[in-house]
């Protein structure tokens, strides 16, 4: 006979397998409620919109980071692609509507191109992702500096206003709609595609993937290219939020660090093969809410960086520490 009680067993399996992401969602909801409850203004449009704008920026970069991580790699240049596309957008996304449209396309292509370069070096050059993306990050930062030696630039004001405010009659922040659109149009199709599944396969076991005839190179290349594209979307959004472009190394570095933390908190394994972008989105939301909570609870600003650092450390340690669950010490080494 077939497997026990069809759909019920299926759903139990599926839930068990998405444990990490579900926990992230639960934690986020709890924290966000705490934030709203303690905010002087409460659940109002400006509060939610501001929170959404900041959170979506990190969520997009975290989604970008998820893809190379699934293949067992890492993209340390993701923050710099974010900054570079921000600078590019502040230069060309303005003017006539057709110029704006073309500018947007160009920015997204630039992000994808950066990702493609990363992927090409990793796949065809056969270099390790860590050192590759560390080096290309410098290149993208240099390009950002070329575009914006000093902070400045501009962006189409109407579009920026639209993207950073709300739709559906002042209820849903546009940023969230953008995020949803990215998930539906990019992440879900990718995950259900042969190439996308190839990424999971490569991360799970590259040797076995090769034996199974998986197109390893193509999957990896796709992962890094899409990562660049998503970072480009984030950079575009940053331009809408800040109305300018800035070639800031600290911002790039912080976003890279936080994207990795978000990926871990969201339940994706750093070793590859398991997890997904949805968990990373909520991991990003959690990180942002922590910042907001610190502000709302009036923590002295001098203590904030330390607190953020400790919380970050604690969160990734909890997510990634395997030592307490393992009874056979040999399993600690992979």
């Amino acid at each position, binding site marked *: *006979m077939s497997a026990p009680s069809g759909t019920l067993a299926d759903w139990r399996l599926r839930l068990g397998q998405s444990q990490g992401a579900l926990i992230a969602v639960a934690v986020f909801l709890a924290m966000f409620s705490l934030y709203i409850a303690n905010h002087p203004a409460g659940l109002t449009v400006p509060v939610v919109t501001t929170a959404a704008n900041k959170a979506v920026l990190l969520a997009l970069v975290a989604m970008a980071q998820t893809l190379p991580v699934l293949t067992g790699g890492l993209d340390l240049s993701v923050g710099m692609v974010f900054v570079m596309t921000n600078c590019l957008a502040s230069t060309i996304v303005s003017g006539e509507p057709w110029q704006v449209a073309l500018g947007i396309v160009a920015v997204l292509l630039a992000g994808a191109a950066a990702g493609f370069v990363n992927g090409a070096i990793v796949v065809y050059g056969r270099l390790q992702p860590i050192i590759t993306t560390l080096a290309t990050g410098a290149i993208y930062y240099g390009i950002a500096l070329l575009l914006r030696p000093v902070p400045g630039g501009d962006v189409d004001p109407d579009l920026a206003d639209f993207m950073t405010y709300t739709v559906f009659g002042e209820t849903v922040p546009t940023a969230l709609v953008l995020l949803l659109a990215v998930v539906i149009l990019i992440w879900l199709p990718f995950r259900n595609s042969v190439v996308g599944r190839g990424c999971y396969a490569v991360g799970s076991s590259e040797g076995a993937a090769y034996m*199974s005839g998986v197109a390893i190179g193509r999957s990896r290349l796709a992962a890094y290219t899409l990562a660049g594209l998503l970072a480009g979307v984030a950079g575009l959004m940053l331009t809408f939020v800040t109305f300018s472009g800035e070639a800031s190394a600290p911002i790039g570095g912080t976003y890279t660090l936080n994207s990795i933390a978000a990926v871990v908190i969201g339940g994706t394994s750093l070793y590859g093969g398991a997890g997904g972008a949805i968990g990373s989105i909520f991991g990003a939301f959690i990180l942002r809410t922590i910042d907001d909570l610190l502000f709302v609870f009036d923590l002295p600003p001098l203590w904030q960086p330390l607190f953020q650092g400790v919380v970050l450390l604690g969160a990734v340690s909890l997510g990634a520490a395997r030592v307490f669950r393992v009874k056979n010490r040999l399993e600690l080494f992979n």
Partner: protein
Amino acid sequence: MNDLQRPLPAQATGPATRQAPGPAPAFWQMRGITKRYGGVLALDGVDFACRQGSIHAVLGENGAGKSTLIKIAAGVVAPTAGTLSLEGRTVRFGGPQDAQAEGIVCIFQELSLLPDLSVADNICMTAPPGRFGFIDARAQRRRAEELLARVGCAEVNPLERVKNLPLSRRQMVEIAKALDRRPRLLILDEATSALTAADVEKVYGILRALRQEGLAILYISHRMHEIEQLADTCSVFRNGRHIETFAKGSKSDNEIVRLMIGREYTQVYPPKPTRAAPPTPALAVKRLSWGSRLKDVSLTVGKGEIVGLGGLDGQGQRELLLALFGVLRGVGGTVEIEGRPVKLRSPGTAKAPRHGMALIPEDRKSEGLLLPMSVRDNISMASIGRFTRGLFIDRRRQDARIDEMIRRLAIKIGDPGDPVATLSGGNQQKVVIAKWLMTEARIILLNDPTRGIDVGTKQEIYQLLRGLADAGAAILFYTTDYDELIGCCDRVSIMYAGGIKRALTGPDITEENIVASALNIDLKAGA
């Protein structure tokens, strides 16, 4: 039998042509195949052919070239010289997917399953149902269920992650995956080594059915009794050359072994000593338990004794050895060494001179050796502390001992500075053993040390173990080969479901008793 049979391939030959090496052209032909890896000649001008509708066994020691032969057939590596032809047509493979496109599918010893992905994803990994590059999850699931039923594993949920399945199930999923590729030539490389007895029977059934359907099947195994059950034709390889091909039943076991090792081979096992009194216990295990995998295990190993652990794969033998060596946490019960209770919390503690334990682990490539490092570095790894003067290593003294060890074990190497990855399987295992002999261990645990090792080296290892025992070591030896249990061990404990099912001594150590206990059957006394 199967009611989900696929339509027969167009050129299928019926059973009638199965036996005769007749005038029809061979389905799969390899001519003049040579494969060189750097300076090593793995295959030397090999001619090989197999027919449809037959199960063709390939036998040979490790290093004989069997693995290379099938890797070439499966498209994983390309031959240095020679031609491959399928149905008279020359073919060349750029990778496994080319071979699979021609209907040649291989089931390897090291599974090709992705542990983090679901069973359905794995089964349909190579060519999933769907259009425009997307996967039709529902169609994929249906196909997976079909194939799981065909291999007799219908109770496995296709959504389950492969890593959560026991090893035996995983092997069956691997077979299902191979069947999804609709093979015309199916190659199995030690495919039953991880299976339970029941699953082995299922596999035999599947293979016989496939033979009936007209598939050509290549079967590599070290287990003589499997080959006797399944094969129609056997080919023996030795030192990269195809020695002989013959029909089943036309040669005796001894003749076959002689073909394999190329020399006359009389005594298999060194003689066991007779004992006047029971030996002093070196290692005493009392009511050891660990989670659900070990339950109340008690046994003793005396000085100078070789005690065997038997039973089917996965009954707790590996866990027992790891627990004794300090690798597992949360172990209950007592362990006594030379009468003193000890708490071993790490291999470092276990190997310390006051305990003197050693473990030859299951997988030498990932647990026993550091493959890119030199033979010298590997042999010295467990005993560096014995060769220090102050903060520094006394290289001269250490190297002298290493050279001595290499001579003692007759390890065939070019230079002790060579990376250990260049050695053959048998010699690699000798390096692992040498590493532990350097620590002058008094209690030696071995986890299936002769798996995948050629017959000649096995002999040397048996002699070595008996020699160590005669010199006073206590040896606990897990093996999946019941011949070894009978031939080598003074006493045998059979494990079943995490506990010791039965302990056998002296004349009780028979194949009957071992197999019965392994299968949890209580034989009537004197039966």
